[in-house]
């Protein structure tokens, strides 16, 4: 039974946007890291999960959600710096495929460590009071928290753009993605740059994990599910392209939500097929903005 009410469909678009924001935050991190370091970080799903756990910890210590929103990404950024310095940076002269394998092993370590620290029992946190409640949209009441998530996503995307376009550091980062050698010649400390970029990418995915937590259960394998969707978004948007990621997150979020209404069984298979197809015929992503070459 599919409702014919226009408001219902408008609300579904909002629901899709919520998923899109979660995916976007994770994948922006992935795509920035790839664009600058040329590394696909398989541990990104685990960092998402850690963001939720650390956020939960801050929340239970201080009772302040906004504090958790600031502290958790910061903590995970520091974890990211640690990872980059000890595992990624020393492997820069090695074939990149080894770094890929390394980040995969990192997932195992991060997952198990989370289980040791917090146990494998699931946790639940509630949205803070100042974000609970609903607003009316036509005939539907819509949770304020979800509006907040959508707003947060837009804000982060804007901030990121401003940062990259308007600040000196942002310009350097953008330059690094297309011409690393020249930067080095000009005396820019590319090593420090990579560290910062990895930290930024980690912070973004941690933020997504915490933001998702009031809606979803927190458990050690919570990243496994969503990281695959993030990889789909990464590929469809074109690896390394921020604009592509934003568009692809919107697309995938809507497809998932609308697919739940219309054709749940095979929506997912179609999505993976799209991912494979794009890699084959349009490796720079649907909008041709990415950096992946299909050469051998």
């Amino acid at each position, binding site marked *: 039974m599919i409702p014919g009410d226009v408001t219902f469909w408008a609300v579904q678009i909002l629901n899709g946007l919520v998923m899109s924001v979660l995916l976007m935050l994770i994948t922006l991190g992935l795509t920035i890291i790839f664009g600058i370091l040329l590394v696909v970080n398989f541990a990104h799903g685990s960092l998402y999960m850690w963001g939720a756990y650390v956020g939960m910890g801050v929340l239970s210590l201080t009772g302040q959600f906004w504090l958790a929103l600031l502290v958790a990404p910061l903590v995970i950024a520091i974890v990211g710096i640690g990872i980059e310095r000890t595992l990624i940076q020393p492997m820069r002269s090695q074939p990149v*495929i080894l770094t890929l394998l*390394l980040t995969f*092993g990192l997932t195992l370590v991060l997952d*198990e460590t989370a289980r040791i620290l917090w146990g494998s029992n699931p946790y639940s946190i509630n949205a803070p009071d100042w974000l609970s409640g609903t607003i009316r949209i036509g005939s539907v009441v819509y949770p304020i928290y979800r509006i907040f998530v959508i707003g947060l996503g837009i804000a982060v995307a804007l901030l990121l753009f401003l940062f990259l376009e308007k600040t000196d550091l942002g310009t350097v980062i953008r330059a690094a993605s297309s011409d690393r050698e020249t930067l080095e010649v000009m005396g820019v400390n590319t090593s420090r740059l990579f560290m910062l970029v990895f930290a930024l990418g980690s912070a973004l995915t941690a933020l997504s994990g915490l933001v998702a937590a009031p809606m979803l259960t927190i458990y050690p394998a919570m990243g496994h599910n969503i990281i695959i969707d993030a990889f789909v978004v990464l590929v469809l948007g074109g690896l390394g392209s921020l604009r592509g990621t934003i568009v692809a997150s919107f697309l995938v979020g809507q497809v998932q939500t609308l697919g739940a209404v219309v054709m749940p069984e095979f929506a997912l298979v179609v999505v993976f097929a799209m991912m494979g197809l794009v890699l084959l015929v349009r490796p720079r992503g649907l909008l041709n903005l990415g950096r*992946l070459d299909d*050469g051998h």
Partner: protein
Amino acid sequence: MMAIESLPAATRVRLRDGWLLVGVVATLALVPLISPSRFYVNLAVEVVLLGLWAASLNVLIGFTGLVSFGHAAFFGLGVYTTGLLIAKLGLSMAPALLAGVAVAAVAALLVGIVIVRLSGIAFALVTLAFSMMVFTTVWRWSKLTGGDDGLTVSRPPLDLGFVRLDLQGAAQFYYLALVLVLCAYLALSRFLASPVGAALQAVRQNAVRAESIGIDVHRHRLLAFVVAGATAGLAGSLYVLFRGFAAPDLLHWSASGQVLLMTILGGIGTLYGPFLGAAVFVVLQEVLSTYTQYWMLPLGIIFILAVRFMHGRGLLDLLRAMRR
């Protein structure tokens, strides 16, 4: 132009340490005779089958230089083809086994044709996408496959025309598995030692140079991909006969990750290294899990160290280095 370089050419490849092989096989043959219970025999079957799966992955990684993150797909196709043919159509062992290998090989061919021209990262991501497609299809199509609940598959007899063997016992199946895996191993050995195999390694070391001396890079990669896929299919078909149960977990990307772990752990420099990796993995899983549920942690750490400091050369090289 951003080419993803292939793995270091320094990786030495030794295919057959003759007497070592004989010794290992003889030891393996003794397992059912010295095991206090069938639990250990089953453990050995697990090692042998997972080892074959990991070795097939190494045909891609160590010998051809292609890293696949979706090798569970071909293992799983073997599992479900054989499993479904037995459970739904009542086929006996031999045809079901052959069908499992055939389906995996054909799938590898069809997928391989389109993807072998891709570079390292793209190739890895496509294999991931493909395996998730297979997983999702099996998982969601629960009317056919049982979905998340899995599929019970009772072990049919092995009907060879002139003799009919009911291999219900643990030791009986063990010997069958041992014989078949040994045959597969020897066949792979042969293949890799042949001129074709040498061409594969040339492709791995430097694809551009290989092309320039006349090797058809795409064709050779495709061949390796099909061989690896078919072998993984064999391992999977045997596995479902062994366990009597098919579950979609075996197709998930985490399963692809586990076989990758086993391969790297054992070392990508040899064909038998991955068997060692599988042995370490299975033993640790069974032994450690009685003491702690966090047994994955030391494995993950070893894996990271292996990649970080030994560039994938794994345990075998570590042992050799220690012996010196």
